[in-house]
């Protein structure tokens, strides 16, 4: 292992060893991003170099927008088909969150090449009321991770087929593996569909051109790993490109004022037809004892206005009111209800 003085910031030009004994690679991404194709492509290079190779992934439900993980192991004789947690030499991640999720596989001194492409899943967003997002920030780059804006690096190489941008990561990976560029090109030629071939070869070249940054990341991982316990340590990244900063939890809270929807019901116009109650997607409305619609579950209202649009008597409308005033609005409504109940017309 090369000794590197981490403090001077200089990284010696380091070439990969002439021959690796064995290695573990994990390729991750979201269904449809080309994870399996990429791991096939790498496996081809390894096979051509004479290794025993085993490769494993789970098909089936992972096609449908779920996580896809492919394990590639090589050496003189490979047994288990899966990379154990904490034993991946390299991680190639096509998506930011999946990259962070896969870090449990990484060796303490391993390198993760992670695209900053974000595929925010529907599940992270479907919070009807506070509309917050659960998705890790781009700003904090965990230790051992090289965050790469693959679209920026790929540039026009990915213009025709956007998925090609991720091939940048394979170019970057090729810097860390001791195989001639021709072997990679041959494998790309063998595996990539013809219409995307030129773009893939160019994206690969651009990734490979990041060699200084990739080697710096590798050297940093090797240096710091001696003193830092494996864990979710956050250290400044040796990032090849600036990443944008945004909050881990994004919400409308705290930005100017927070608006919440309120259904205002003109009680004297409501004839209790039940349409709004039946059609409200969130079941916010009920009929009271007088068969008049009541905004019973304000905490579920998304402000979709379906009730207002459907009401044949135009008895309802939806207002967006400041969160601070919400109690006042609801309370006024409740007063209406109590008064009407006491004095039926």
């Amino acid at each position, binding site marked *: 292992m090369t000794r590197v003085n981490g403090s001077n910031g200089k990284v010696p030009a380091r070439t990969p060893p002439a021959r690796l004994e064995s290695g573990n690679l994990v390729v991750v991404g979201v269904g449809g991003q080309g994870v399996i194709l990429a791991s096939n492509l790498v496996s081809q290079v390894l096979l051509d170099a004479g290794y025993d190779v085993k490769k494993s992934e789970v098909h089936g439900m992972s096609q449908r927008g779920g996580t896809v993980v492919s394990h590639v192991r090589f050496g003189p004789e490979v047994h288990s088909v899966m990379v154990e947690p904490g034993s991946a030499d390299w991680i190639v991640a096509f998506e930011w969150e999946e990259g962070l999720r896969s870090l449990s596989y990484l060796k303490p001194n391993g390198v993760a090449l992670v695209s900053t492409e974000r595929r925010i899943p529907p599940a992270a967003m479907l919070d009807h009321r506070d*509309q917050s997002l*659960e998705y890790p920030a781009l700003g904090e780059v965990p230790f051992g991770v090289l965050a790469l804006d693959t679209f920026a690096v790929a540039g026009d190489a990915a213009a025709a087929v956007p998925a090609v941008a991720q091939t940048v990561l394979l170019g970057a990976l090729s810097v860390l593996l001791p195989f001639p560029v021709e072997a990679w090109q041959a494998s790309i030629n063998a595996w990539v569909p013809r219409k995307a071939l030129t773009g893939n070869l160019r994206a690969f070249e651009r990734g490979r051109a990041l060699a200084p940054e990739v080697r710096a990341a590798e050297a940093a991982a090797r240096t710091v790993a001696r003193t830092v316990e494996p864990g979710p340590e956050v250290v400044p990244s040796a990032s090849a490109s600036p990443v944008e900063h945004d909050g881990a939890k994004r919400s409308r809270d705290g930005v100017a004022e927070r608006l919440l929807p309120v259904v205002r019901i003109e009680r004297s116009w409501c004839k209790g037809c039940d349409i709004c109650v039946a059609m409200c997607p969130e079941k916010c409305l009920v009929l009271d004892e007088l068969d008049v619609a009541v905004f019973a579950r304000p905490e579920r209202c*998304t402000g979709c206005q379906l009730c207002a649009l459907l009401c044949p008597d135009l008895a309802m409308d939806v207002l967006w009111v400041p969160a601070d005033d919400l109690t006042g609005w609801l309370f006024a409504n409740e007063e209406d209800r109590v008064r009407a109940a006491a004095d039926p017309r």
Partner: protein
Amino acid sequence: MAETTRLALLSGNEALALGAYHAGVEVATGYPGTPSTEVLEHLVRISEAGEVDADWSTNEKVALDVGIGAALAGKRVLVTMKHVGVNVAMDSLMTSAYIGVKGGLVLMTADDPGMHSSQNEQDNRYLGRFAGIPVFEPADSQEIYDFVQVAFEVSERFDVPCLLRTTTRTSHARSKVEAGARVVRAVEPSFTRNPAKYVMLPAFARERHVVHLDRLEALQAYVEEHPLTVEELRSRALGVVTAGISYHHVREVLPEASILKLGIEFPVPVERIRRFAAKVERLLVVEELEPYLEEEIRRIGITVEGKRWFPRVGELSAAVVRKGFVEAGALPAGDGPSARLPVPGVGNRPPVLCPGCPHSTPFLALGELDAIVSGDIGCYTLAAAPPLSSMDTCLAMGSSIGIATGLAVSGLSKQPIVATIGDSTFLHGGIPPLLDAIHRQANMVVLILDNGTTAMTGGQPHPGIAYDIRGRAAPAADIAAICRAAGVTSVVVVDPYDVPATRRALRAAIAHRGVSVVVTSRVCVESPVKSRGPVYTVLSDRCDGCQACMKVGCPAISWDLATMSTPPGVKIDPAVCSGCTICAQLCPSRAIVSVRDAKADDAKVLSLAAAPAEAGSAR
């Protein structure tokens, strides 16, 4: 032979197809099911139509029956299915051991430890033992290729079907395979009348049961010295009996241990195990799922440890096996790599229905109608998860209709009762329960989600599709006509992309007394011919963030991060949108329009659609 494999690494399923092909298989059938599906698909890829008669069957039992028939005609037959599929075929399998085969018959059961894509993780070694047929369990692609050829020989030699068990990891992992060439079997199909062997009247079956038991004795003697059972003597301190993928985990974690690796797990080679146990000081069994071998070994009076250290739930991995050995004291504590803690803020990424999935609107409508939904197996089972959250039961293939019937005849009357079932699943196991529901006059709706394919497993044809596995034209069953013929008086076919029509059809069906059928007919977005309309976009000045569109759970719809600081905004990823129009129909603000309309509308709208960031700040 059309060679298509470019990578010298074969998946276990590809190796199984190749091994069967090289063994001279002439008839192949099965029913799609993860992780077994790729076997037939690959066999079709590497063989000519004249060499192998391959196609999917209606269900697993039909597949096995077809296979038995072809075997009786002297052909070598491969039948493939997932573990739970064998339950469906079990009726035929039990007695097939009595009547035997003529040509070799290998039944592939693809077990799914860890339930990557299954409703249970049953261990089918027990089913092989129950049926009294040999059970082979290979550990990697090379072994799968080799074992399937041995299995054909054993099948013919002992006149018995053979079970070849793979697991998700052996089926889907890729490793090197050295392959031979196809053996051309010059067998003319023939059928010899032999009622005493082939007609299982009680009198004949009693005779055959004796034959079956004699055969088991012969098989027991055969497996004892079989070369597929391998003894690897290393350290005498610890011996491990194992089989299948677990073998590689043990080799990975404890390279010094002596190993007895079983290639055939039924009958269990008990004398081999006895001899091995005598050579080591301590005996452990490492096996996935049930303590099958452990019980067999304990039964012959040998002290053995197994499930005490290794889990009975989920799939094994090197890490899990390592943990077991540490707890058993065979490895020092703290052995092995240590993993990082999870990064905070990383959420779940559950599987979702595809953009434009025609299953989404019927389930959206069912949610609005507050129906009790008896679901079934297929992509649409994902409707149980948010945001659709409109499935209440899911048990086994075709169970939806029977369970709904049971709920309906129990007198539940407050909520409508709806069974939902896909086209392939309906043909697989939905017709008998439909007949039952009609005969019982159950008050319920059967919603048949017809997307013209077996979608969950990657789009295989079924008897309702006008082409076969090789893409040749084939007769197709008409699902609506089947329902009418069964006696359903109210059968409506509706396009699920028409949201109001789907809602109306379901409301009308619920109002109908007795069994009514709604067929939502729209081809799967991932079918061979991808259906794509013009892409849709959100006019951010009209969107008020009500999330009516998000209720579909479409992966193309997300929050517009550029407008998150202002009142909410939604965007549609044009690369993901399939142009299905469902979200546009749901939007109360009419903020979702096709890009084409947006362009026609006016130039301002166009600029907003192209630059959402500006649109946000303009509000």
